[in-house]
């Protein structure tokens, strides 16, 4: 799982690396608002788009009004996410909104800078001629000429262009030094007094690099308790909208299992990917975790590599020993000692299957009972 940061955390990183941000602070209770730096915006801290439309961003003129607005926003459910904190931030006097972002260019295998003179809206809806892509050759690295190309594209005054060039450099510093996989400023605001400031901030940290960023440990994240548990067990957990709980080893195989279910009219509700492992301990953890997600059927599809099928089956049986699992389980384990593994599972009341299609068919049938 990648680590998406809340706006206020993203802006802390902006500040650390020198990307200008409006003055502000974050609170989890309206009473904590004691003073404000003039007129402010009160912004719900949730990791979901369309906060503004959902009423999660409101202006306030006075401390009293800010408290009132904050009290209304805190606890608000915005598309399934609860606003537990609000960012109270000095209101920007906006003259123009731009867009600046850095992401990965998978085709060119390098970082990619994206810029548009039209910010503040979904960048996907910006026409092609209004968006500029600047790939960053890994051997060249970010250089000021890239920032100058971007600034020139935005149609600004000379002074503002210089500010944008600096911001490009700082945002790239953040991207590289914080091991980010996305750093986005949308909108990048030009104020009426000619300053260029980050209006909003989106940063996603590469979770594979967290070993060298101890400072991110304990960063607040928007995850459900089950997602949290899966993360600790190093299992990929995805909530879907069907009623079959799918456990498989490997992302491709898990997706193929979902696709096969679909062929037989079954729909997956939870996706658990153990990664390319067939470690019996992990299989056991996954079965227990899956039971908590309350699916109607559990479908286990393990393609054995190193471990023998009977050993993997033992992992499943141990889960059953530890907890009285009432949900029917369809299991298909492929590899060495397959027969023995299947026997063990049948004896324990688990529905065995030999092929992927057979397993998908049986699980779909169970889910429609």
């Amino acid at each position, binding site marked *: 799982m990648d680590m998406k940061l809340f706006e206020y955390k993203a802006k802390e990183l902006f500040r650390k690396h020198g990307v200008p941000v409006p003055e502000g602070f974050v609170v989890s209770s309206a009473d904590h608002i004691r003073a404000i730096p003039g007129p402010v915006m009160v912004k719900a801290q949730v990791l979901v788009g369309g906060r503004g439309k959902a009423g999660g961003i409101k202006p306030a003129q006075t401390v009293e009004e800010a408290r009132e607005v904050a009290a209304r926003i805190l606890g608000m459910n915005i598309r399934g996410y609860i606003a537990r904190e609000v960012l109270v931030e000095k209101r920007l006097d906006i003259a123009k909104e731009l867009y600046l972002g850095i992401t*990965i260019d998978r085709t060119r295998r390098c970082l990619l800078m994206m810029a548009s003179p039209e910010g503040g809206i979904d960048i996907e809806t910006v026409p092609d001629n209004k968006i500029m892509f600047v790939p960053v050759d890994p051997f060249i690295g970010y250089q000021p000429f890239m920032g100058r190309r971007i600034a020139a594209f935005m149609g600004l005054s000379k002074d503002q262009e210089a500010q944008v060039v600096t911001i490009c450099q700082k945002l790239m510093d953040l991207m590289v030094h914080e091991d980010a996989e996305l750093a986005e400023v949308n909108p990048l605001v030009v104020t009426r007094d000619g300053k260029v400031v980050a209006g909003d901030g989106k940063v996603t940290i590469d979770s594979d690099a967290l070993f060298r960023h101890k400072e991110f440990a304990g960063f607040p994240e928007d995850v459900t308790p089950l997602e949290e548990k899966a993360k600790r067990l190093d299992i990929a957990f995805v909530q879907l909208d069907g009623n079959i709980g799918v456990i498989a080893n490997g992302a491709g195989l898990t997706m193929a299992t979902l696709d096969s279910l679909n062929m037989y009219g079954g729909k997956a509700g939870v996706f658990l990917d153990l990664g390319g492992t067939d470690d019996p301990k992990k299989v056991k953890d996954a079965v227990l975790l899956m039971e908590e997600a309350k699916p109607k059927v559990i479908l286990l599809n393990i393609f054995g590599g190193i471990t023998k099928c009977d050993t993997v089956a033992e992992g499943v049986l141990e889960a059953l020993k530890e907890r009285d699992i009432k949900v029917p389980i369809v299991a298909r384990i492929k590899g060495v000692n397959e027969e023995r593994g299947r026997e063990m599972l049948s004896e324990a009341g688990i529905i065995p299957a030999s092929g992927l299609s057979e397993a998908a068919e049986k699980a779909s049938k169970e889910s429609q009972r």
Partner: protein
Amino acid sequence: MAVIVDSNTRLVIQGITGYQGSYHSKAMRDFGTNVVAGVTPGKGGQVVNDIPVFDSTIEAVRKTGANTSCVFVPAPYTRDSVLEAIDAGIKTIVAVTEHVPLHDEIHMVAVARSRGVTLIGPNCPGVASPGKAKVGILPSKIFRKGNIGVVSRSGTLTYEIVNAMTEQKLGQSTCVGIGGDRVPGTGFIDVLELFEKDKQTKQIVLVGEIGGTAEEEAAEYIEEHVSKPVVAYIAGRTAPPGKRMGHAGAIIARGKGTAESKIKALEGAGVKVAGVPTDVPRLLIE
């Protein structure tokens, strides 16, 4: 002939003294791979499964003539190990390790590609040429010698499909698992180019998944440059947008990378696309 690994492969295993490295050094040798050396800094002089261990890759290359490396070292040290292998003159590297930081990946992939080094992975199951050599962690028993080239972004799904092929007596020339990360060292197009030139390979199987545009680009390449018949399977037809499906790369983001778009592009290039993995053998026989 086969591609990437064959009877000329002289393998050094970086991280041989760990559990994975040690287990798979034996599995690879049993498959027929000529495993000549292992490397673990500080453990030079040891022997693992009769394979001599060296402190550095350059020493292993000088003393054993290794020309291929398999990297099992933990993610924080993978970039160091891959660059060490490149620096030592190794021309083919299979990096099995998963969870390599993205910025490390961009760096090592850039260096490998600019030096003409074939880097497979990271986060990949490796490469197997049945009857010749295997470098990586693919289960040996699923393979059968033959003339179908397999290239895949997945691990266990590749095993599923290769196993289904073998059950139908459809053998493989080489099976290449390029890995599911966003910045793979070797992509579909690199491998398609090799299969097209390879005399042993008569048909090609391409296993893709949602996310990115690698399959669409492969389709374009197939249309223009590949004369051999191609069968494909794309995992994730039923995956919803915005959810990362296990692999770092498997996500339908901003409306891009859907299975529909990939299937359409491949079919447009004359590729037969299987609805489920177990359909692949049938399409190969047709």
